[in-house]
């Protein structure tokens, strides 16, 4: 799986990592039982602080997305296998309609964020 962080983005780095793991689970790239890279390896690969990755992993654990096991590292939780297909289809519909209406991605995400509040 691809991890990317942009230090020039206003979003904190730990949140960027967390979002990608969440998105990976929803997309089905990360399946229950799959191991994430160790925090040390991921921090080294992205040239960021170890504690930034640990913070992201702890947040993910607190919300039940992953389990942190001594010796085995971070594992995607078994009880996260929801069926996200209806959500995917709905998102595709939103994308299609907002393109048809000529809305900018910023406007569409702003509307989504507003609706989710």
């Amino acid at each position: 799986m691809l991890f990317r962080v942009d230090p020039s983005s206003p979003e904190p780095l730990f949140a960027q990592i967390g979002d990608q793991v969440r998105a990976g689970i929803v997309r089905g790239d990360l399946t229950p039982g799959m191991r994430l890279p160790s925090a040390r390896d991921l921090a080294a690969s992205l040239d960021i602080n170890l504690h930034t990755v640990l913070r992201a992993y702890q947040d993910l654990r607190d919300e039940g997305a992953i389990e942190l096991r001594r010796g085995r590292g971070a594992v995607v939780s078994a009880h996260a296998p929801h069926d996200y297909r209806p959500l995917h289809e709905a998102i595709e519909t939103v994308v299609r309609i907002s393109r048809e209406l000529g809305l900018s991605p910023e406007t569409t995400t702003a509307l989504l964020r507003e609706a989710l509040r």
Partner: protein
Amino acid sequence: MSAPHAPSIPGAEAGARPPVPHKALTTAVALLIPALVLTATVVVAMSWAAELPNPVASHFGGDGPDGFSSLGSFVWTGVGIGASLAVLGWVIATGLGRAAAARRTGVGTAVGGSLFLATSVLGTLDAQRGLADPAQAGGIDGVVLLCVVVGGLGGALAALLMPRDRPQPATAPVPSTAARVPLAPQERATWVRRVTGRSMIAVAAAVVAVSAITARVADTPAAAAPLAVVLVVLLAHAQFTVTVDSRGLRVRSLLGFPRLTVPADEVLHAEEVSVSPLREFGGWGYRVGASGRVGIVVRQGAALQVTRTGGRVYVVTVDDAATGAALLNTLTARTR
């Protein structure tokens, strides 16, 4: 179907491949050491002729010797196999050895193979010295164990003594035709993927079963020794972690070895290819394939292939290799 190593990106591999380095040293180790070992084997074996039964026991089953042949035919068969392995290893090391891994594989095969055969010949004969009837020879459990240890350690030592590749930073830009991952200027990225050798694990399970049965039925615990070695080798191939980041490509086994590293500054380009382990590498595992391509191939199908400076090509079977290849191209291009 073109040659398996042919880069699908035109102009990416400019000119002829550079010559294989370290040919003199490789030849000295891969041919001279086996020649000395095997010559000494013949000399020592023949000097024992008066003390040995005629014919000698040449093959052992669970209940002791079950095959016999003349001393000469036994010694020359063993030495012949050892010499063939040495020549095979030398051909790999000097013909395909652009990557240190390929040279090490060749030299390890040559030295390890000839030491294994030499130990096997001399050990088997030593167990029969002073006997009038070769059928009196006891078991050769200890010899089997010794062969594995001497051959394995000798081969590994010879391989490790081979010089590593000298640094060869790339100067050419990454071809614009090579796939990329769009990244923002400041954005950092890494691609991590685990690959499980299911066939390796299945074979390892079979090896455990067979070795347990063999040791039990034949009552020769040492018969399990070569199988134990095979088991460790198989387990070392059970799972690999493939990482692409700004430092380059890294492939690491669960046990730490085998591993493979290609630093970003030596990457020419990366791509996804399809690998047929049996046809292109003659089997599964950590392998040297046709034209010296070094591969960690644990299954058929998609693989990440990296063309490196010095005419070196590496391949690792992994899912979603296209993303890994594109990211490696992108991060590599940043360093040029």
